[in-house]
């Protein structure tokens, strides 16, 4: 009910911009409040790119940590404390991550980024000189923020597997890691996939930390060292001081974001629901 209302209100507010720009809004790269020309392509690209880069970092780490925490490598009480600590990561407000990113992460990242640019500048990925804020630091902080979701859901789905599976694999002589890689992970893959989808949705909608770190430049650049923008940070930056058609264009951008995230979330719900049906 509330959900439908949210979609409706945003859609109504977005209507003037929709009439003016039509579907071209989605693939026009120019966002210029002075001439009232709006296109969201660079923001849509930034949203997807930063979220995917964050997944690229967070998925291996999260699944690795989940395996470590769901097997009996270390005593259960210590595991419980570690799981709680990782869940605590999810509870820290995103504005605090942003602050930490500006004053701790970016100074640490700058020498590395310069090194990347000097030595690998021939690759399009690193072909702009680093200015501090940019796609890469934003993706790094995003990865930290979605790590707890991936770890928690992967741990849950690994623990929820019937113990018969593990015992059967061990009894035919598979080593522990053979069991994990060939039996347990494939069996839990839909749960892990659901967790990854949820994390993707979270990363696409994350606002504050990204706004503070991505540089908010409405440009389309392949380089991960260049400043970029996402839909969410565009909204955070421009809403308070926009008028007329710009408000409507922002609403349109918000509408695009909602659709993107709803699709991801509904897919995630369906995948997670499937594993429950399979093993319970």
């Amino acid at each position, binding site marked *: 009910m509330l959900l439908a209302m949210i979609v409706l209100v945003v859609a109504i507010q977005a209507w003037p911009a929709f009439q003016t720009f039509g579907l071209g809004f989605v693939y026009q790269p120019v966002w210029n409040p002075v001439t009232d020309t709006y296109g969201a392509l660079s923001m849509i690209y930034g949203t997807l790119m930063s979220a995917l880069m964050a997944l690229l970092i967070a998925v291996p780490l999260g699944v690795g940590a989940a395996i*470590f925490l769901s097997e009996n490598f270390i005593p259960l009480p210590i595991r419980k404390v570690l799981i*709680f600590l990782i869940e605590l990561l999810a509870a820290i407000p995103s504005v*605090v991550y942003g602050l930490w990113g500006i004053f701790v992460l970016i100074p640490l990242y700058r020498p590395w980024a310069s090194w990347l640019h000097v030595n690998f500048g021939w690759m399009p990925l690193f072909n702009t000189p680093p200015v501090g804020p940019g796609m890469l630091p934003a993706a790094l902080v995003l990865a930290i923020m979605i790590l707890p979701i991936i770890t928690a859901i992967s741990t849950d789905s690994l623990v929820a597997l019937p113990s018969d599976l593990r015992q059967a694999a061990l009894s035919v002589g598979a080593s522990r890691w053979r069991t994990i890689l060939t039996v347990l992970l494939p069996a839990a893959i839909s749960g892990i996939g659901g967790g990854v989808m949820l994390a993707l949705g979270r990363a696409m909608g994350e606002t504050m930390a990204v706004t503070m770190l991505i540089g908010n430049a409405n440009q389309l650049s392949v380089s991960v060292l260049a400043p970029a923008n996402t839909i969410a940070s565009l909204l955070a930056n421009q809403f308070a001081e926009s008028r007329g058609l710009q408000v409507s264009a922002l609403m349109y951008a918000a509408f695009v974001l909602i659709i993107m995230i709803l699709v991801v979330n509904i897919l995630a719900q369906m995948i997670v629901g499937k594993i429950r049906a399979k093993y319970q």
Partner: protein
Amino acid sequence: MPDDATESDNFFEPSSLDRRPGSARFIFNLIMTVLAALCTILAIIPLVAVLFYVLFQGGQRIDIALLTQLPPPPLAEGGGLGNALLGTLIIVGIATLISVPCGILAAVYLSEYALGSQLTQTIQFATNVLSGVPSIIAGVFVYGLLVVTGLTGYSAVAGGTALSILMIPTIIRTTDEALQLVPQDVRFAAFGVGATPSQCIIKIVLPAALPSIITGIVLAIARASGETAPLIFTALNSSFWPSGLFQPIASLSVSVYNFALVPFENQQELAWAGSLILVLLVVITSIVARLVTLQKN
């Protein structure tokens, strides 16, 4: 993947049961275990780093002035976040007033009146999807509903409404879970002595589930007080003491955001101190909630 075939050559020899530290599968297992442990450590490092910096940088400015004074103008010394602290309390208070009755009523309906029906499943699905809606969208929604239309303008009420949209799914979910944990026998016993369904729910089931419900509400409040995105363009900000529910109002999280982006050292220190308050709030409530649930089990 190591080649395990060589190990089965002398399968029936007793020595094949020995643990051979040089074997391929032993080394592979060792490497993978170390990798997994490394992943876990890497996952914990950011938490330690963030907490350390917030404590270290924010701890320097924790004093009475922080809690009682107005924020300083650029380049001035001293000052505090008193108005932002009060503003956060007011906004979160409004959000709680809206979301707690809504959330609890919805959960009671879901688990007591309409359990298992098609409608319930649809609503639960919608609630799950709603909890995945990014916080900035809640801000956009309230902006379109209350601010642009001039119903409240930029105000504490608009900010509180935006936060309540984020709190409702959490409250519905935790209350729903708490109600389902109340044994069915208790309800049968209440009906057995002649209670009507509403009497049963108000006098028997809700009190039994109260501790878990309160835990859920407190967690929702702690999360909401750290939210920034929905407040930037609903509650806006202000450098003065709150002057009314329908005026722009400062909040801790928005103040941290603004002060993080300015080049003045004094204000940056205040941003760290503000984050420290937010982080302490979240961490302490999480630990207390965890202890309460542990005690019950």
